[in-house]
């Protein structure tokens, strides 16, 4: 594309008199993207997360060995080398391949938790904030009960009740992570519920349900996305923690937390067994945190007038 074409495309996106719904929406997204991409670290975060997604999608191609079947006879606890980049574990499995396959489980956990917890929090928070009175009191006390326990302890209790396994770990984490989202959504709702633009919609005769769904929720979503992204690291760590305690993913699943747990027996002599998945968790958590920070700058509802 020539420089002129790019220039005119940019002008089209940034036009302050868009001619169609699509142009208005794309223009808005473009402004957010410019704000986001001005932040170098945020781009690094985005790159890390994109790499994670790619690795998870192409795990079958990228991994040189099987993730679950090892060479018990010849390849137990080998140090990192050209044939086994990250070494092998006590069952002779290639750790590099296991980490590549493990990215799938990490994504699985993170996405499922976000899909379950964020809407619950959004719904509870906006309804409580908009309705006020009894509804608010009841919903928020329930939220408080969840918040009163440390997250991992509560998740442990749920997993203990539901039985160990990665699906139950996801459920347990989701159940324990919605309350902060409800709090955020409620706080946002309280700041906008008395604004004139919400009153104007009330005066159109809109039902409370419609107001919450179509007018209040869109305003809460950006702060929620930011918070969820920043929480991703915590979710990965909780999942890893559950795995480590033997209540999350069960062997031989190559889940990173479980891998650390099984590597801890050799942590002094064969550090790579626990170190490699630990490092993977570190990188991905960092990626989500950087991404979240960048999103905060790009989506901050208070700078919506820009």
């Amino acid at each position, binding site marked *: 594309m020539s420089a002129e074409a790019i220039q005119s495309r940019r002008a089209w996106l940034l036009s*302050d*008199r*868009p*001619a*169609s*719904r699509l*142009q*208005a929406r794309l223009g*808005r997204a473009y402004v957010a993207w410019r704000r986001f991409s001005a932040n170098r670290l945020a781009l690094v975060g985005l790159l890390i997360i994109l790499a994670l997604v790619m690795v998870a999608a192409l795990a079958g191609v990228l991994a040189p060995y099987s993730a679950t079947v090892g060479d018990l006879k010849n390849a137990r606890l080998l140090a990192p080398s050209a044939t086994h980049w990250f070494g092998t574990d006590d069952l002779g499995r290639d750790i590099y391949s296991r980490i590549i396959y493990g990215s799938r489980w990490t994504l699985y956990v993170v996405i499922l938790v976000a899909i379950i917890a964020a809407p619950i929090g959004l719904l509870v928070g906006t309804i409580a904030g908009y309705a006020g009175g009894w509804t608010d009191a009841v919903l928020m006390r329930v939220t408080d009960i969840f918040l009163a326990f440390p997250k991992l302890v509560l998740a442990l209790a749920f997993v203990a009740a539901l039985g160990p396994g990665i699906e139950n770990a996801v459920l347990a984490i989701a159940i324990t992570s919605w309350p902060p989202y409800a709090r955020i959504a409620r706080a946002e709702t309280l700041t906008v519920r008395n*604004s*004139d*633009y919400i*009153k*104007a*919609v*009330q*005066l*159109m*005769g*809109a039902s409370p349900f*419609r107001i919450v769904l*179509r*007018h209040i929720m*869109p*305003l809460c979503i950006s702060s929620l996305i930011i918070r969820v992204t920043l929480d991703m690291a915590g979710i990965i760590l909780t999942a890893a923690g559950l795995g480590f305690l033997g209540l999350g993913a069960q062997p031989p699943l190559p889940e990173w937390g479980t891998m650390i747990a099984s590597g801890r027996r050799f942590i002094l002599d064969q550090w790579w067994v626990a170190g490699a998945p630990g490092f993977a968790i570190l990188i991905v958590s960092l990626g989500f945190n950087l991404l979240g920070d960048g999103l905060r700058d790009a989506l901050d*509802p208070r700078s*919506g*007038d*820009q």
Partner: protein
Amino acid sequence: MTAVIAIEGLEVVFDRFRALKGVSLEVREGESYGLVGESGSGKSTLLRAITGLAPVSSGTITVNGKRLGKTRDKAFYREVQMVFQDPYGSLHPRQTVDRLLQEPLAIHGIADGEKRIERALDEVGLGKGFRFRYAHQLSGGQRQRVAIARALILEPSILLLDEPTSALDASVQAEVLNLLEEVRRRRKLTFLMVSHDLAIITHMCERLMVMQNGEAVETLTASQLIGHRVSADYTRNLLRASEGFVRV
């Protein structure tokens, strides 16, 4: 002429603060009625009580012969619409003008949306070029025009105006006041307008009520006010203040 809005002994209490202390008034069909007062006089509260945004603790409000209860139905909002004071606060920050105008049509299930939106934008002097802009891409006067278009799109017969121009520059204020007069004439609307500015009220309204501390001070016609034929001292004070500063 019949009264389209009749208010009898209206009281509004917020947390033991009596914002309105038994106010009565009658607005006739097709007339433009003004409420003048300073902050805390209860003039805006009265508008909000009519729309159901402020809690009525006693007294009655009758609109088009129907006595209003605690809640308002959809039919009420097709008859009565309101324009707010602050054009920066009354438009949703994440919605285009198109979305803003579509919303009332969707709520009331009106089909010919496209045509109505274009007509409404033309009527307030904005035109199609503004249809897909966000609120932050509009000036204060343009925002207030959008707010007026939104109020008119349901084709109400009564428009409540809460200081519609006090946040605007003087020259923009003139444009918006002219627009309001024009739509009133064309659609034969009834106005109930609130302002702290006597000059605006006498310009826009045939009759007016002066309010202070939640009570009615006196009811006048615009010509009585212009001729300084007022009986209350408070009104006289307001009149003097509106003439600008006089060195003593």
